[in-house]
Every structure is written in C-alpha cells, then in structure tokens.
C-alpha cells in the first residue's frame, strides 16, 4: 500500500499565530488523518500549544471533534481559548 499524503493549510489565530510565528502554515500528513492525529503532529512541532488552556480545531468554520476526518481542501483553523465580548 502506498501512503497517500495530503497537504493542509492551517490558519492560526490569537496566541497560536505567535506560537507558529505565522498566520498560516502548510503541513503534509499521511492519509487517513483526523483531528487527533493533526493535534499530535502540531504538539510535537510546537510544544507551546500544549501550555494553552484549550485548543480547539475548526474545519470549514465548524468546531471539529477528535475523530473528524480531514481531506485535502478543508480549511483548518487553530482556535485557542476565545475571549470576545
């Protein structure tokens, strides 16, 4: 079986923009990939993300669960603790 890779663009907001030192990054992952895998990879690359009060991931503008599957053209965003209002 050949591993198929997908490229994902990850948008970063608030403090995560400072942790990643970018508004967005691109990462390549072996399929199939879900939110839990993505979080693992991100935490390995950016351990400071683990220091946050919480870290949610949005896929196509909706909060995603750990088992949500990701595919190539999804818009993925890091959602650190929100503090509007």
């Amino acid at each position, binding site marked *: 079986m050949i591993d198929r890779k997908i490229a994902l663009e990850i948008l970063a*907001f*608030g403090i995560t923009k400072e942790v990643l030192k970018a508004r967005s990054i691109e990462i390549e992952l072996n399929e199939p990939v879900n939110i839990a895998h993505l979080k693992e990879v991100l935490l390995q690359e950016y351990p400071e993300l683990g220091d946050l*009060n919480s870290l949610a991931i949005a896929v196509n503008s909706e909060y995603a669960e750990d088992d949500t599957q990701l595919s190539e053209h999804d818009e993925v965003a890091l959602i*650190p603790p929100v503090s509007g*209002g």
Partner: protein
Amino acid sequence: MIRLTKENIDIHQLFEEVNSGSAGGVDIFVGTVRNATKGKEVIALEFEAYEKMAISELQKIVDTVISRWPVQKVAVIHAVGYKKVGEIAVAIAVACPHRNEAFEACRYIIDTLKETVPIWKKEIFHDGEVWVSAHP
C-alpha cells in the same frame, strides 16, 4: 443583523435596527474596554476574529435565541482591531414584546458569545501585551 466592524459602534443605530411598534421591551447590552485587569492598568484591547466562523457562530446563537424566546429582532455587533479604554467592544440589542424575555435573550447572547465565538482579545499594557485567557 450580525456584524464585525473596525469602526466605532453606534448604539443609537443599533437600537434603530431592532426597534419597532410591536416590541415593548428592547434590551441593549454594551461591553466596553475596561481600564484595568487584576489591578493592572490596561491601555487598549486589540480584537482579532476568524471572521467567517465568528459570523456563523453568532448566527447559531441568534437562531437559538429566536427559537427559545419571542424575539422580534436581534442585532449583534462586535469590534475588531484596536480599541481604547472606554470604547465599545460589543453591543447587542434584542427586541421582544415584554422586558423579561428581552433581558434573558440578551444575556444568553453575550454569555454564549464569550464561550463559542472565535474572537480573541489582547490586553495592551504599558510594559507588554497578553492574549486574554490563553494560559492557565
């Protein structure tokens, strides 16, 4: 009406958005930039939003409010960008036939907004900046 804006928020305009002859109670909540946090002087706040998702999450809140209370009109406007002490960060107006439901619906909107809507604020002090609630 749901909107994010870099401009100054006009409360009177917000009121006009929701006011009508059939609403006997219009509740307006206004959140402003406070001059201190935990005893430390704040100069300004900087708001950032994931705009597309912020609008869709606000729409969900408004839909819930309309299904739970006899709401006639709702307007929510939230600031993005740099806001000085005393300026308006968020304003919500809810028009209902009677005051009780207007108060309850308005409170539900601001409370839920603070929990689910992807907007972030950074407090700007004389000696630095901190993203609010980011760390324990």
